[in-house]
């Protein structure tokens, strides 16, 4: 079995599950309860927040636990838009955001905001110059996906952060969901104002995530209710989920230290092997892309057909982003990169993790080549 769909979701680390289990069993009380059991839960919550903050090199007061990446993106974008609507109503983003940011922006347009969607080049990157030119006095937010979930392209976040450093009225939010542990993002300098991550993308539990909100940045909450999470995110905290996510974050960052070059080698080897397939287009840019995502089209082979052909051999990959994979339309991301509609409809995504082995890479290439040959055979006959 080869699971190359780690950008859709990952299998939780056994250690993270262990944490989940232990906390669920031993810390069941509500952190808001004032009795001893409640205080113990509150203490553990505080410790987890501190650990998350240390791992991200920020302060614990800057961490808000959420139910995932979609909530984080919605909270950041709508929360800032709503809070600063009197200051301005202009937002800058890209055409290749994840649906949760993209549609949050679309919604804001309906509410009277003006959104600039920056185009990307054939490598899936925005132009820094164009972003600069799009900035206006009333731009309240720039929201950028760090690592694109379909093609792995990386946006020049640190340059944008430097640019915006002198513009305190324009905040910067980064969707770092796919970047965690794979492509570094420096939050320690305080130039990034908000940053979303999601637990299930790095072997933590589903339904967990966090939003980094730089000290001093205000936003309107998405939910009203109790005063949990500094009044920014009401609702009883999912303590087992939070502790397991933080555990997974720590492990992923450790894997990054020990396994990063291996992961890069896997990707390079895959690209090399893939390049020899007749009629293949590799949409992921050669340089400056994330180490775990490869997006390809193979001429004449429909994406779904190929995905299922691979599945027969217990190889799991995906067509574009999982949460919109049920519709048959071509990927919005690839179209934005200038890929033709027919090529975009044939795109599949391979996504690796630090668990990926060299054997899996070899196996994968072998199986893919056989399946492609078989499919072509069938089509010719």
């Amino acid at each position: 079995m080869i699971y190359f769909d780690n950008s859709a979701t990952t299998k939780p680390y056994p250690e993270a599950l262990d944490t989940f289990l232990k906390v669920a069993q031993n810390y069941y009380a509500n952190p808001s309860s004032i009795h001893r059991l409640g205080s113990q839960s509150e203490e553990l919550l505080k410790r987890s927040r501190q650990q998350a903050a240390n791992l991200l090199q920020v302060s614990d007061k800057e961490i808000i636990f959420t139910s995932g990446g979609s909530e984080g993106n919605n909270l950041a974008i709508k929360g800032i838009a709503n809070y600063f609507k009197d200051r301005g109503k202009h937002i800058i983003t890209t055409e290749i955001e994840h649906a949760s940011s993209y549609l949050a922006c679309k919604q804001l347009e309906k509410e009277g905001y003006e959104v600039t969607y920056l185009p990307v080049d054939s490598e899936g990157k925005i132009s820094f110059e164009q972003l600069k030119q799009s900035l206006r006095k009333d731009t309240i937010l720039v929201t950028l996906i760090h690592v694109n979930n379909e093609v792995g392209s990386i946006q020049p976040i640190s340059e944008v952060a430097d640019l915006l450093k002198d513009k305190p009225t324009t905040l910067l939010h980064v969707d770092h969901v796919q970047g965690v542990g794979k492509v570094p993002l420096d939050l320690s300098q305080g130039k990034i104002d908000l940053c979303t991550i999601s637990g299930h993308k790095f072997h933590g539990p589903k339904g967990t995530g966090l939003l980094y909100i730089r000290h001093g940045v205000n936003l309107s909450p998405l939910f009203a209710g109790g005063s949990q999470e500094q009044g920014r995110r009401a609702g009883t905290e999912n303590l087992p989920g939070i502790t397991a996510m933080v555990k997974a974050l720590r492990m992923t960052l450790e894997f990054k230290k020990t396994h990063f070059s291996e992961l890069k080698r896997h990707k390079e080897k895959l690209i090399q092997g893939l390049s020899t397939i007749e009629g293949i287009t590799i949409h992921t840019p050669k340089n400056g892309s994330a180490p775990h995502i490869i997006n390809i089209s193979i001429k004449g082979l429909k994406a779904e057909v190929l995905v299922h052909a691979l599945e027969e051999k217990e190889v799991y990959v995906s067509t574009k982003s999982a949460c919109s994979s049920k519709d048959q339309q071509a990927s919005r991301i690839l179209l934005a990169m200038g890929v033709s509609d027919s090529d975009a409809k044939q795109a599949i995504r391979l996504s690796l993790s630090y668990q990926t082995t060299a054997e899996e890479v070899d196996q994968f290439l072998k199986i893919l080549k056989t399946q492609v040959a078989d499919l072509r055979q069938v089509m010719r006959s």
Partner: protein
Amino acid sequence: MEPIYLDHAATTPIHPKVLEEMIRAYETTPGNPSSIHRFGRDARKLIERSRDLVAKDLGTESKQIVFTSGGTEADNMAIIGTAFSRKDKGKHIITTKIEHHAVLKTCEYLETLGFEVDYLNVNEHGVISMEDLKNALRDDTILVSIMYGNNEVGSIQPIRDIANLLESHQAVFHTDAVQAYGSIDIDVQDTPIDLLSMTAHKINGPKGIGFLYIRKGVQLDVYQHGGEQERKRRAGTQNVPGIVGLAKAVLLSKEDLAPRTEKYMHFRQCLLDIFDESGIEYKVNGDPKYFLPHILNVYFPGANVETLLTKLDLAGVAVSSGSACTAGSIEPSHVLSAMFGKNADESRHSIRISFGRDLSLEQVKEAGQMIVKSVRDLVKN
């Protein structure tokens, strides 16, 4: 000594069978339900089976259930979603003074956006009057949100009467059933409720998962945008193990509802007998006839609640003064204030005792003796 936990209205320990199923889901079904391959299909099957179970329990169809990250999110989704989708039909909302903050603060937020909210009074039993509701109802009322059972005093509202009354009115009827769910029998087939929220962690399920029941034909504005999960009503990768755990908790609570109710009624009587025998002065807050069996709120004249809670905590008895989300700071309870008037003695001298599945009669009796002893100490001084 392991404290005697009498704070199940704040949250409950996870049931071992729930945890077991969740861990199995984590280990064997790690896929993203939106993925088109086997991992996705398996995960999808799991959540759809869970949805079927939940729907059946509630007397509805599966597609009327939308999973959320908990009760707060479900309440917000119901109230904000209705208000925004029906703002052309009117801007008047009716709720009560004794709602959980997830409802109250959301209504207050809507007031800042130009909606008009009436907060119905309750009588000294914590129950609204149908007359008041009828009088408050206007042609431009778009939403009535009235909780099923109160989380502090356990009083149950005349939900069926309200639902029937609103059948012939344009207003959507939402009920926060977070405390009532699993504590009493709820069926939306014979009670025409439009929207109903619940959370799993109050019924020995996991934290961070809940659902909103949306009656067929009722439209809500989406407030968390992104992927097409949950029939486009709530974006975000579903928390598969959480959903599985929720469904298991629902099943378990259905199974033992009758014996559990009997058990809690017995606990309640035992405590009251102990109080009676001791001769301490006390009064039960809440409705004498229609109440949630797991909640017992008692007024001890002369016993300062803060000191009482501390004493009990030291003695190993975990109870609370009110809703956990506000308990961090002991403010006078808004529920008791609504029942007895602002600054009423009850609002500063009452504790909430709430029962759970694992409690034994011995523990309850022991706690009862502790309460008597602590109250005596306090009243004497």
